[in-house]
């Protein structure tokens, strides 16, 4: 089997020849630039002064290049959009040294000039005359949202303001996707993921609420206010989600015309519904305000394409996984096995026939950052044997590989995955 066949088999609940591996197929199965650089240097794929390209400019995820993909035998490749969270294009790369010394490449419009305290800010559309939308504290690892929300005037709250950034795909974007998808499909054997999804399907993601690409975001733009609104402004949220769904389905149609069946998995939702010990919101919030729309979206995809749909939701989702399944999702990520009621055995047994686990490969809150390499290897092998049985599993860590993971643990993880798959990798 080649990589694409392997993933297609796994996501159709058929056992592939070996466990498929994803790294960087989505912006929640990626790797932080610092960890990536350490790993690539250790594997002899990069010289210490050779830079890593940043593909997610908020979470600071690095680009998985062809050398690494081949070396680790990764089975996925992402079809990325041209624009980033701030609404400018990722182009004309320039060097920048990260706080911890990692050499990076960032787009031209990425601001690298620190303030007096050494913090770095980014601006909507790269326009430094606007108010900054995110800030990376000196010595930090990620960008944090800068609260630009205004007090809410209930009278003037409207769907259009809330969805200002939610647009139909342009002809330029569509022809880019068409060309890129052809290139990836014809020139590689990897399974092609569509990590950003299309504008409109990602209902209520608190990551997007602040409206980073907008210079003057209106509506509910503060995360806490958004969470509260799920209870206090139900009608408004329902109207917003309905309108988004309409735009989302329109965009899916356009995307389908452009890429056809060349992509295999599309990200539909990355709203977090879980926290460490249980759901973040009442179950009814999901059932009333999200599920009917998710169902409409998933139904459209299944009726009209061969794509599989993915939902990313952190934390303890156990109580609503049955709802995700009923809403028609094919794939669940990141499968946070360290949260309450999310043990691999339990999940596989109860839901394994109905949903694909894309993640859950290692506990990223304990074992991976703080365990010994041996503990990492043991856990990786155990999780693969539980989740992998009969297919329905793509190996990925729980959420992105963060910074500050000991090198020995990084190596141990990929060694263990490839051990199970019967692959010997030089340098691991």
């Amino acid at each position, binding site marked *: 089997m080649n990589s694409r066949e392997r993933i297609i088999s796994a996501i159709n609940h058929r056992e592939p020849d070996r466990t498929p591996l994803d790294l960087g197929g989505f912006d929640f199965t990626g790797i932080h630039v610092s960890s990536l650089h350490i790993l690539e240097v250790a594997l002899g794929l990069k010289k210490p002064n050779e830079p890593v390209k940043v593909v997610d400019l908020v979470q600071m995820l690095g680009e998985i290049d062809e050398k690494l993909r081949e070396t680790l035998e990764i089975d996925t490749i992402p079809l990325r959009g041209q624009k980033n969270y701030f609404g400018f294009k990722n182009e004309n790369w320039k060097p920048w040294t990260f706080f911890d010394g990692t050499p990076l490449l960032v787009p031209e419009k990425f601001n690298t000039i620190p303030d007096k305290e050494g913090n770095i800010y980014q601006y909507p559309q790269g326009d430094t005359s606007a108010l900054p939308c995110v800030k990376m*504290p000196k010595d930090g690892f*990620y960008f*944090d949202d800068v609260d630009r929300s205004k007090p809410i005037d209930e009278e003037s709250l409207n769907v259009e303001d809330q969805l200002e950034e939610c647009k139909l795909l342009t002809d330029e974007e569509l022809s880019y996707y068409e060309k890129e998808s052809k290139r990836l499909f014809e020139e590689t054997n990897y399974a092609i993921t569509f990590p950003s999804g299309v504008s409109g399907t990602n209902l209520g993601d608190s990551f997007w609420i602040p409206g980073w690409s907008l210079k003057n975001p209106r509506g509910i733009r503060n995360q806490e206010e958004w*969470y509260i609104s799920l*209870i*206090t402004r139900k009608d408004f949220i329902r109207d917003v989600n309905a309108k988004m769904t309409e735009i989302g389905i329109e965009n899916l149609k356009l995307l389908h015309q452009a890429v056809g069946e060349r992509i295999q998995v599309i990200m539909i939702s990355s709203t977090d519904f879980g926290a460490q010990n249980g759901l973040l919101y009442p179950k009814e919030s999901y059932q009333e305000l999200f599920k009917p729309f998710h169902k409409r979206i998933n139904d459209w995809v299944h009726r009209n394409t061969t794509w599989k749909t993915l939902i990313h939701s952190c934390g303890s989702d156990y109580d609503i996984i049955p709802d995700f399944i009923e809403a028609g999702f094919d794939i669940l990520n990141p499968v946070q096995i360290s949260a309450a009621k999310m043990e691999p055995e339990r999940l596989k047994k109860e839901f394994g026939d109905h949903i694909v686990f894309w993640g859950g490969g290692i506990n990223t809150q304990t074992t991976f*950052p703080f365990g010994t390499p041996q503990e990492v290897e043991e856990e990786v092998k155990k999780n693969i044997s539980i989740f992998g049985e009969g297919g329905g599993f793509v190996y990925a860590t729980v959420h992105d590989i*963060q*910074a500050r993971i000991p090198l020995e643990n990084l190596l141990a993880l990929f060694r263990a995955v490839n051990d199970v798959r019967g692959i010997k990798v030089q340098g691991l």
Partner: protein
Amino acid sequence: MDILQEISDNLQKGQVSKVGILVKQALEDKIDVKTILGSLIEGMGVVGRRFRDGEIYVPEVLIAARAMYAGLDLIRPLLVQTGATYIGKVVIGTVKGDLHDIGKNLVKMMMEGAGFEVIDLGRDVSPEKFVEAVKANQPDIVGMSALITTTMVNMKDTIEALKRANLRDKVIVMVGGAPVTERFAAEIGADSYAKDADTAVAKAKALISNKR
């Protein structure tokens, strides 16, 4: 129904304006401010326990807290006048590099709802800022929240900074947040860890009475 019971019930239901109206009414009825405060504390206590037990969720707690503040803001100036004291002073913040503040905010709200004075330093709070705040406010407790394994270590740095400033012995250090554990708290030399906001309040109370 007894107006104090009504205050507590409406707080639990998150009826923001109703709680304000009822507290005003209670003040007009010449009910002692401390008794009114008691009804807010009682209501918030119920909310904390229901959240701990998974009966209600984050948005509901946030809404109840708004109702609590609608009452608390009215009686605060009067409490100061009567010389009523807080049961303790807490400086709280999410550590450097971390933006997750929902959990921290819940802890703060519950603590205020339990009669503590809380100084909230917000999120992305550096060790230096914690030290400054301790110098300026002389709290009984320093509370730190961290939600990511990459930022947890900044709790240790803060404790070290407090030591260097000779302030470590003067405060009780409490830590929490999803990846934090009892063991980690002990390793970095914190005094206490709590899994949720309700437990945090109970532990804070116990630690303060021990200290005094």
